[in-house]
């Protein structure tokens, strides 16, 4: 098995921070930690070359650096790549994640890297995986970009290399263990696996352990939440352009846009320029709540009537004549994030200062 090793300028032996601007290069053999890695991978695998790049060079022009490295690496025809470990070095971690993802995506080879849990490279790697993953037979197909858990600093190099080599060997043999067992970070995907015991039995087991003071591990860890800082308040509402937005499933009557009643992937625009209030020209399509009352009077969902009043009274400067709507309803976070961003961009292009979002 032909293995490519990647290191930054420091671990490749080029120099310290003063050499962080050095450009991409490939050298024969296994440099720096690659030497130990070679021992661990022998005899089945050989490190045919070490690719390197300065952390600053990579950070300043990530797309170019990746392209250049790919061009250098491609002719070597590696079967697998090992990158880092980057420990808690942010720029190094980002480089390993970017290059690793590119090798997986462009060359179709597994890439094993290692970093500490706070390294920003992890999030980048997960985003890359999200872009590359496909849906297989009832489960996600996640490309083999593996991020081994390491300590924060290079004193743990020995242990990190051992884990990375073991994982490289396992993935080459097609026997990849799960994240907990393999010592790598979850990719951000989950799949269904068959269990001997039903969930009810396992829940009782969890409870008894808890009550006895024995260690227990939840099967459903809490999600990682994004903190979104609030925008500053509107300075002068009387001169502001305000838009009405809803995830309650407002649509044009007859649903000409074919909006679904949930699992939102799209949004639509409801033109109300000619209206002082919503009426039979609008409907509500949403399967997550009983829409009887809002279909009787859609102003209960999106208060165009009141908003127009405020506009007439001069309490708000101007009401955008279009309502932006989506059904939401079990919209996965990734979709909701995209829909939100797209609507926000559309509003910003039209000079909107504030949006009122009515929900269910």
């Amino acid at each position, binding site marked *: 098995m032909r293995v490519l090793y990647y290191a930054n300028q420091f671990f490749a032996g080029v120099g310290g921070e003063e050499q962080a601007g050095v450009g991409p290069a490939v050298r024969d053999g296994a440099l720096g930690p690659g030497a130990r890695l070679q021992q661990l991978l022998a005899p089945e695998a050989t490190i045919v070359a070490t690719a390197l790049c300065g952390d600053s060079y990579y950070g300043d022009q990530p797309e170019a650096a990746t392209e250049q490295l790919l061009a250098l690496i491609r002719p070597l025809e590696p079967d697998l790549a090992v990158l880092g470990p980057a420990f808690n070095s942010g720029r190094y971690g980002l480089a390993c994640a970017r290059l690793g993802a590119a090798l997986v995506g462009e060359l179709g080879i597994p890439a094993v890297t290692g970093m500490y849990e706070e390294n920003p490279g992890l999030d980048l790697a997960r985003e890359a995986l999200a872009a590359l993953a496909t849906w297989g037979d009832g489960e996600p197909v996640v490309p083999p970009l593996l991020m081994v858990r390491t300590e924060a600093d290079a004193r743990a190099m020995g242990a990190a290399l051992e884990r990375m080599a073991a994982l490289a060997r396992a993935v080459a043999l097609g026997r990849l263990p799960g994240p907990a067992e393999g010592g790598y970070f*979850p*990719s951000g995907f989950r799949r*269904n696996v068959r269990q001997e015991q039903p969930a*009810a039995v*396992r829940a*009782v087991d969890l409870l*008894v352990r*808890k009550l006895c003071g024995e260690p227990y591990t939840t099967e*459903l860890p809490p999600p990682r939440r994004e903190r979104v800082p609030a925008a500053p308040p509107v300075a002068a509402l009387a001169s502001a352009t305000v838009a009405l937005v809803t995830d309650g499933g407002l649509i044009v009557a007859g649903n000409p846009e074919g909006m679904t009643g949930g699992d939102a992937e799209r949004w639509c625009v409801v033109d109300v320029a000619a209206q002082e209030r919503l009426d039979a020209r609008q409907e509500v399509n949403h399967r*997550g709540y009983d829409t009887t009352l809002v279909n009787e009077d859609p102003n209960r969902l999106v208060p165009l009537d009141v908003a127009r009043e405020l506009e007439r009274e001069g309490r708000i400067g101007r009401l955008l004549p279009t309502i932006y709507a989506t059904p939401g309803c079990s919209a996965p976070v990734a979709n909701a994030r995209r829909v939100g961003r797209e609507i926000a961009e559309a509003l910003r292009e039209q000079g909107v200062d504030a949006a009122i979002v009515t929900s269910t």
Partner: protein
Amino acid sequence: MRLEIARYPVESVIAGRETRLQGRTLEVDVAGLRERLAADPRLGDLQLHLVAPGDSTRLAGVFDLVEPRLKRSGKAGDWPGILSPVRPAGWGRTNALQGVVVTTCDLDEQSPLRYLDAGGEGARYSDYSSLHHLVLTSAAPPGATPAQHSRALLEAELKASLELAAATVDPITGVDREPAAVEVYDLPSLREPPPEGLPRVGYIFAVRTQQRPTLDDEPILYGHNVRGLLPTLVHPNEVLDGGLTNGYWCFQTDTYSIQNHAVVRALAARHGRDLWFSAVIVYVAPTTQPERERNVALAVRLAADVLGLDGVIITKTGGGMPESDLMLLAEGCEEAGVRTALVAWERLTAGRSESPLTLFSPRADAIASSGDRDARVVLPPVARILGSRNPADAGTITTQMYEIPGAVNQFGAGHWRAVDV
């Protein structure tokens, strides 16, 4: 309360002149049964079919599934509050046919349970694929409202299940046939204190969500529609013995899975060994926040202050909104000193683990996963489709786990869980 469930395993089901059990072969008077059930004017174009495991048959529009059972002794008859007067279920002896289920399919309603394959590649997701089904399909006839039709379907499945279960009794002598096994549920009332050291454990059983409001005569708890029901207590045996039914809207909470309730049985199995199974708190998930806060607070004080429980298992019902109830119940209990473990499905888009539930409390640190309910699966074409007017439903179908009856049971009965990759 002592309940004995006598199990009569069935390995093949055939149509015949009378309904009887010979060894492990169940013969069913399908034609006669159909005639008797079709007398109900609220049913339309009632058809009965036998489906065996391995058949290239798909069931669509599944309304409910019921295990055929017959009360032989006890304080209540069969299905108290629906087919018999309200008396306490859960006492005495009940005969149960094992490996057979009466499955009703509603041709009109858009049931969330859409595709159960008895054979082929599509049969690997749900344990219900390995059961023998007596399938009843019906559509509301002109003049019958959806509510009337649903009630009729429910009564028909219960009556059909009784006729089948009657085969466990010798028609001449009136004596029970020999069961293969007898399960005993000897669980105390609150009168009996636990032995020293055993924790008092309960189960908060969310039986219904009002996302789909219950209809007037929709039976959930002893035939009652549980609309506005405040958290209340039942004995575990009542769950297993006909005190509860699914009602008209089945979202992976079918009556079969109530009769064989996975959590109740799991707790009962460990009763007296490492826990003391004290009580079941019946909970209804409302659709407004003030009602939710009220119901959660009342359920938590039942668990903590009235029953003095050390721990509870909590499960959810319905769709996404009751995930809030699940988490608020867990949080409230933990804060009141009642430890919790939950069963919950996961909602993952294309397998992404970002947001498995709509609400997540950090206090919910012990959850058993019943799997990614949104995982898309492709079902291959089948030879026969029942319960659907659309012939395309027999073709290749892309569906999700939660649409397959039994694949993601909300009481934790299924055999899937989601794991990180």
